[in-house]
């Protein structure tokens, strides 16, 4: 399996992530792109901030890639996540997964984003007009 995992404080390149996942053995590349939406629960978001415990975030994303390889015939996995200030519409995360056939690519890509949201130490602060909130902090 080819792995490419990164945290970046500058804008992510979707094209780069796809190129890094490409392989002559691949019959499918599934790509997930997480973007910044303009509102949450009716409140207008002005921008958001991602903070990461960087060495552990990289280690946890690496664990996700290894767990994917244990369950599906992964040819390559690319996970690039942003940190810092993001505007509405900016790309927060790109996951690209290449496999021989499409079913595994879809399943493994969904597993990757679902697990990332549960385990990778990255925190999102949504900033509204007149306030800010750390997402998922409270029940």
């Amino acid at each position: 399996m080819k792995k490419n995992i990164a945290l970046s404080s500058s804008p992510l390149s979707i094209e780069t992530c796809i190129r890094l996942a490409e392989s002559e053995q691949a019959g499918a590349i599934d790509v997930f792109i997480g973007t910044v939406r303009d509102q949450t629960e009716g409140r207008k978001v002005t921008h958001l901030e991602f903070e990461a415990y960087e060495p552990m975030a990289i280690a946890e994303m690496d664990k996700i890639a290894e767990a994917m390889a244990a369950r599906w015939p992964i040819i390559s996995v690319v996970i690039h996540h942003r940190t810092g200030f993001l505007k509405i519409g900016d790309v927060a995360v790109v996951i690209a997964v290449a496999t021989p056939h499409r079913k595994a690519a879809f399943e493994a890509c969904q597993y990757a984003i679902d697990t990332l949201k549960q385990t990778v130490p990255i925190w999102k602060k949504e900033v509204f007009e007149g306030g800010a909130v750390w997402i998922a902090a409270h029940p």
Partner: protein
Amino acid sequence: MQVRVVAFGIAKDILGANTLLVSISPESTVSDLKNFLCENYPAFNKLRSFSIALNTTYADDNAAIQATDEVVIIPPVSGG
């Protein structure tokens, strides 16, 4: 022993600082540290949950803390 605890996200807001130097008994566990934090900063009780990482790995509540460990409070994550 003295342990330097590093905080991220809402944990940083609760502590009012990026780091906290605590004095705990030498045989302290992760659970002991969590109790210390909840007693001194009750806002930790209001979180959905929080974990402690030792040396960039999630630690079990019964894991022992060494003075040389990198100790980090991990509040509920929200990447992606």
